[in-house]
């Protein structure tokens, strides 16, 4: 498909720095399944990129390769110029299936990353409490995951990733299980976070609206093998009232364009 790959982001772009994450010719084969084919992408600090594509097109696979959790079959990933050989402190991950420790409280789960980095107890619990409140779970610090709803568990995973203060946030459908009101609030919070902190966000979603609302750039993936089918850079003004974005003609047009592009894969 051909998608508009023009335009500049209207977010006050930082003086164009070199990409912090570089994906070079990455392919992944699982036995007979070709999950990804020849992916070339770059990600710059302070920007949010969405990966959008049908189920099974390799979004999680790509995110895990960037995280250093699985090796690519071909190609390489570089972070700050250095080839990735495994996970690193500059990357944090929000898991599609939450991956919470069932035997640990919300507080311990959120503080887990900090604990592994050797942050002293008092400090890590304070930071964990901050992020627990930030995702709207204040009061649930001592609850166990099985006492929470799906959406609440997902927010614990989100808080855990945010708490370690990593430069690169790899988020695999982080809002998929939360209700619509909370999702909108999180989307606005995320926009604030992107604007405030110069972090790199890689965001997997199934929602075209969400991708267009949040992203500086949307990477459209085609299924089996997953390939970059197009790149869209929505020209949306993100300062001011967040509600206005959803009525912005550019927002509506972009959603429509992407929808027409992806329709082909639905059959």
């Amino acid at each position: 498909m051909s998608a508009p790959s023009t335009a500049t982001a209207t977010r006050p772009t930082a003086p164009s720095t070199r990409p912090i994450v570089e994906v070079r010719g990455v392919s992944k084969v699982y036995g007979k399944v070709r999950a990804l084919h020849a992916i070339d992408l770059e990600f710059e600090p302070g920007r949010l990129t969405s990966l959008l594509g049908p189920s099974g097109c390799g979004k999680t696979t790509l995110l895990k390769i960037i995280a250093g959790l699985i090796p690519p079959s071909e190609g390489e990933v570089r972070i700050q110029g250095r080839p990735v050989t495994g996970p690193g402190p500059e990357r944090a991950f929000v898991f599609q299936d939450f991956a919470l420790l069932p035997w640990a409280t919300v507080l311990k789960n959120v503080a887990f990353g900090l604990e592994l980095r050797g942050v002293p107890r008092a400090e890590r619990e304070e930071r964990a409490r901050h992020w627990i409140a930030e995702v709207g779970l204040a009061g649930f610090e001592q609850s166990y995951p099985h006492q929470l709803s799906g959406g609440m568990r997902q927010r614990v995973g989100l808080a855990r990733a945010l708490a370690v203060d990593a430069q690169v946030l790899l988020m695999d459908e982080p809002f998929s299980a939360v209700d619509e009101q909370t999702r909108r609030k999180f989307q606005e919070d995320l926009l604030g976070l992107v604007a405030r902190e110069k972090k790199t966000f890689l965001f997997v979603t199934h929602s075209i609206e969400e991708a267009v609302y949040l992203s500086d750039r949307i990477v459209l993936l085609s299924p089996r093998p997953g390939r970059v089918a197009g790149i869209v850079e929505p020209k949306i003004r993100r300062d001011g009232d967040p509600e206005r974005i959803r009525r912005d003609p550019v927002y509506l047009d972009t959603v429509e364009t992407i929808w027409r592009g992806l329709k082909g894969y639905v059959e």
Partner: protein
Amino acid sequence: MRSAALDEPAAVPVEAEDGRTALGGAALRLLSVAIVLGLWEVAGRGGVNPALPAFSETALAALAMLADGSLPAAFLVTLEPLVLGLAISTLLGVGLGIAMGLWRPAEWLGVPVLVILQAAPLAALVPLLTFAYGIGLTSKTLVVCIMALPVIVLNAYRAIRHTPQSLVEMGRVFLASPRIIVLRIVLPAASPVIFAGLRLGVAAGFIGAILAELLITPTGIGDLVTYHQSVADYPRMYAAIAAIVLASALTIGLLERVEIRLFRPERAGR
């Protein structure tokens, strides 16, 4: 008939495994015990079998045996090979199971042996053991181990093998070392199944201890059972059996507490 008596009170720990709310669960457990004991009483008084004493007779016999010291003395004798055998089986069994779950060569070496042990009628080995090690503590301890070890190893191995992959990935992403992943993720995740194996192993070990006393030389509780059976003092015979079943059930309940304490606080009071 003897096995029926062994089965009925053994229903207690099974019930204990899934209490719902703490209070309702406790009430139901008591009710279950009361029903079993009530049936026992009725069956004993109704004269289903002249060799089946009522629960009240058995309880009185037990009190008498406590008072004259014969029951505690027998317990101490039985306890020696039992505790020794269970300690060895627990340490060795959990250790081997974890090694097999974490390390391929150990898995390849261990699995065939386990399959054979699972398939073999282990009680048939008892005469062999007596031939090799005599009729002393060694043989009896080995019988306990033979009964308890396989199920402990197998469960520990399976538990480790079934660690949720996404939790391990989570550990890696947040920079846990392999050692920390094993200690903080793999072991806690595996602990319910490891402890299920331990509970089964403890139950099997109790069977092994009594089996050894019945098959090798009558000592301890086994001696009480054989002796009172031979003189047709059935209340005392049943008291000895019930005592060992109770001890087994209490040990198993204790193990569950230990597990929740050490590894799975979220299951407390569930």
